[in-house]
């Protein structure tokens, strides 16, 4: 019961913040609303028994990525799209379409029988990292994936440096930060 209450509170905050993203005029406001939304999502993760994921969410998303976003927005000061309208014809075309799509999927979801398993384990750091770094040959082998993700991040960083290197050296240093 209590969980439901927390969920409703966090969910409303998340959806509200998401709507703020949609409706805010300046990207900086949008970014801040996004942070709020992400933090409340992290709360839901914790509520669902995945505290590790919640922490990562806050650190990486709300921390690093959003930091990057705000930095870029502030560096590119001309980014305020005063000239361009917030919404145009396309927007009014897309909103009903997406709503219809979501409604359909939701309708399908309500028909699908699924429920929480009572015997779930809490995704604590220990459990998660044990599964993640299970190097046994019979294990799931996520460690390989993990390494590959590391390489991907590295190459993304290199690509970012390469793309943006001409003026904005400061952004590059930010990029390196968010790689944990």
């Amino acid at each position, binding site marked *: 019961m209590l969980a439901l209450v927390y969920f409703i509170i966090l969910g409303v905050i998340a959806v509200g913040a998401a709507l703020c993203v949609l409706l805010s005029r300046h990207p900086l406001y949008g970014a801040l609303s996004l942070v709020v939304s992400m933090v409340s999502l992290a709360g839901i993760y914790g509520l669902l028994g995945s505290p590790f994921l919640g922490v990562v969410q806050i650190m990486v998303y709300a921390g690093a990525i959003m930091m990057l976003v705000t930095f870029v*927005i502030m560096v590119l000061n001309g980014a305020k799209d005063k000239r361009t309208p917030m919404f145009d014809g396309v927007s009014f075309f897309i909103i009903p379409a997406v709503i219809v799509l979501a409604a359909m999927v939701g309708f399908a979801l309500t028909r699908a029988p699924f429920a929480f398993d009572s015997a779930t384990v809490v995704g604590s750091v220990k459990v998660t990292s044990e599964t993640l770094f299970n190097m046994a040959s019979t294990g799931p082998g996520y460690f390989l994936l993990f390494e590959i993700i590391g390489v991907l991040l590295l190459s993304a960083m290199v690509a970012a440096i390469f793309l943006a290197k001409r003026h904005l050296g400061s*952004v590059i240093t930010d990029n390196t930060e968010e790689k944990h």
Partner: protein
Amino acid sequence: MELQALYIQILALVIFAIGIIVAISRRNLFFVLMGVELALNAVNLSFVGFAKTLPAEMSVTGQIVPLFSIAVAAAEACVGFAMVIMIFRNKESVDADSYSDMKG
């Protein structure tokens, strides 16, 4: 009344829909990227929600996948913003509609 698995999915769906709407209907490139992030977040939430419906060992797996997806999102954001910077330098605009060089 208890917290149902369905609620999590509905919430994820709503946030995903908003994310898509943001990504497509807004013309500012920053909003486009933020919309994508939002949608990714919703997906992660959906993963976690579904993970909880599985028995013990498998539910851990369901929580590891979002980790990877977060990492990929980080990489995407990194490259995406670098591209925004580069494009902005060329066009002096963050309007997504001004980029139409690919049209034949």
